């Protein structure tokens, strides 16, 4: 077994070295610099398209999906080895996709064989770009209070309403979406449906964020026809699918906390310099950074532990809430320190020196970390109730 895996590792490395173009071994700088695929896919360079194609060919955009649905059919160990070897070479993800990260796992668990065959291979090849229709303007943290109506018309639903925070809805081809099919039952009146964003009655409007970017949209549905064959799971049981997906999303976001990034202290030393004793020449900031980095390193261990326990199936089911809460708050704290460390220059919004205001825009962007995917307050409620078993008010 181990010999087999070592052989797989060697082959994989060789193949990656031969097939991953050097341009695709550079870090991704912005969300737009990643490859998102779709009907209207744009590629930042020819190598990006090439990399997507060779990886999709092997099913390695989704290494652990079954081969019949366009996946690589790799075992968990093989998939891990592929990830490790890609990381070792610095290979970019060939495809960034909500289809892979979110819809795929839900379809694999709740979809019919027909639905899997129709959607999964196109996701794997990056042919269809998906977006997620969950949040609504008046729902917020209380997601299940969603109001977008789906009227039963026999073989189809007629969908009316509005979604918000749909990531890249203006660039997506299809949407997976929660709609209300029974107004009388909050949780058991929700259905999980899929439909084409080119359907009549769908329109989108990008939302300008405080960071100056517009990764999200408002999305409007005006008498949109959705065939009943596009229901995933049972009618009125969409909340089960949604919860499964949310758990998945939380883990993903939680996992991001552990990724390595330039230590704040390095940024600070570059901008501020050292004193005669070799210490950062800003004593109070230095102390705040030191206490932060202590916590960040401890959280690095926590991320490792969470991953290990999650794999072993021994993590508390609500543990992702803790990871999400702590990781996002830490990331916000990190960017506050980075702004202090950068001083006046970090305040620049458009300058070349800051690559178009990257420090300030990233800092503002992180403020959403503790809001999207369930606010910090919601995570604390979950920890209090589900882990600590504290009583309801």
């Amino acid at each position: 077994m181990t010999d087999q895996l070592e052989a797989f590792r060697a082959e994989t490395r060789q193949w990656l070295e031969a097939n991953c173009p050097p341009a695709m071994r550079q870090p991704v700088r912005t969300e737009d610099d990643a490859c998102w695929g779709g009907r209207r896919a744009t590629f930042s360079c020819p190598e990006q398209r090439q990399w997507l194609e060779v990886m999709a060919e092997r099913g390695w955009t989704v290494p652990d999906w079954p081969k019949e649905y366009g996946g690589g059919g790799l075992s968990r160990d093989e998939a891990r080895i592929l990830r490790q070897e890609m990381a070792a070479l610095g290979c970019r993800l060939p495809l960034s996709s909500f289809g892979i990260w979110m819809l795929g796992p839900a379809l694999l668990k709740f979809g019919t064989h027909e639905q899997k065959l129709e959607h999964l291979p196109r996701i794997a090849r990056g042919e269809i770009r998906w977006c997620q229709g969950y949040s609504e303007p008046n729902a917020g943290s209380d997601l299940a209070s969603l109001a977008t109506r789906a009227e039963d018309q026999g073989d189809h639903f007629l969908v009316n309403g509005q979604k918000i925070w749909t990531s890249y809805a203006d660039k997506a081809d299809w949407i997976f979406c929660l709609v209300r099919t029974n107004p009388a039952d909050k949780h058991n009146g929700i259905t999980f449906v899929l439909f084409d964003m080119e359907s009549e009655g769908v329109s989108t409007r990008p939302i300008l964020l405080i960071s100056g970017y517009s990764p999200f949209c408002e999305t409007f549905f005006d008498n949109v026809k959705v065939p009943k064959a596009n229901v995933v799971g049972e009618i009125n049981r969409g909340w089960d699918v949604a919860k499964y997906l949310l758990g998945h999303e939380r883990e993903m976001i939680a996992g991001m906390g552990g990724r390595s990034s330039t230590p704040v202290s390095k940024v600070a030393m570059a901008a501020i310099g050292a004193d005669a004793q070799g210490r950062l020449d800003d004593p109070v900031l230095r102390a705040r950074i030191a206490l932060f980095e202590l916590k960040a390193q401890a959280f690095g261990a926590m991320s490792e532990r969470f991953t290990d326990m999650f794999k072993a199936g021994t993590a508390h089911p609500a543990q992702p809430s803790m990871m999400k809460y702590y990781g996002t708050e830490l990331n916000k704290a990190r960017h506050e320190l980075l702004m202090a460390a950068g001083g006046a220059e970090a305040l620049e919004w458009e300058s070349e020196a800051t690559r178009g205001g990257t420090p300030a825009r990233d800092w503002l962007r992180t403020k959403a970390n503790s809001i999207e995917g369930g606010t910090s307050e919601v995570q604390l409620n979950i920890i209090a109730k589900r882990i600590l078993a504290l009583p309801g008010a």
Partner: protein
Amino acid sequence: MALYLTEEQQMLADTARPFMAEAAPVAHLRALRDGNDPAGFSRDLWKQFAEMGFTGVLVPEGDGGLGLGHVEAGIVLEEMGRNLSPSPFLATSVGAVGALADASAEARGRWLPGIIAGETVAALALEEGARHRPERVALAATRSGNGYKLTGAKRFVVHGHVADLVIVSARTAGGADDAEGITLFAVPGNSKGLSAHAERLADSSIAARLEFDGVEVDGSAVIGTLDQGMASLGRVLGGVRTGAAAEMLGVASGAADMTLGYLKERKQFGQLIGSFQALQHRAAHLYSELEVARAAVLKAQQLLDEGPDKAARADRAASVAKGMVGLAAVLAVQEGVQMHGGMGMTDAYDIGLYMKRQRVLAELFGDADYHADRLARLSGY
């Protein structure tokens, strides 16, 4: 002196508040920003400030001003902060006016009338590094005939690219880290050899990097005593630190009020979110921090207004004010954005603009880290 506003001061506040809310509300900032205004502020508004008497609030009556104090200047600044009103008021009417108090009669006669009239805009060129280090001055001023020639660069000069007058700290003796040997100069913005590279900041204000390539000024440009500029500079910094604290307090108060309003109108899980105890306690804690910050600001303003006898106490109090408001205000905007939820992340809501302005004001003239350290050094530890 009682640590609250006098009746006269309260009257000024009652005048300044509706004026600013009408003449320069957040929509005014948005219009300048969306129109990509090259100055970053409105000269028309500056004229209106003059009509209100704000521009000369700290100018002695003998020089044609109102002869009022930092408490009154702070009232104007707080309302600017509350409305995010872009204005050269802090640099000009607090900073430059403060510096000119030590300048020659000639320089005062040259600059003060324009400031009072709302025609002259000044900038402060005091920084050379990424962080506030006013005592590190490398920009050199060397003797040249009857005057001086200035060579070097300054950073983070807010609206320095359109200033008519630039107050510059320059080295006339000693090394870059020496407290001795610094001299302040009043330099015309249109001087030959002075060039500006302007950059828009996160809050849509514009700051410049100024290059001094042998800029020549005559002897009347010297402010205070040659080589002893730290005295004037210290006084100027006391004023603008306290002023920036007052403005930032306005930003924080505006953000907190907006957030409180949201807590009272937004429903989640069938309840007003302001009824959730966890948010109530955080709001109450924030209120407490802001009240403490307000007291620190007023204390610094009063001490500054008590004149040279209280200079040392005022200097410390300015650091307490700037540092304390820095701590309280960052909490106000962070809680503001978080409690607004997704809405708080959108450019359409104002709360994000408060976060940006707070960040810039926190950095200006030293943040809480700087001032905590400064107080520690002054206390000998």
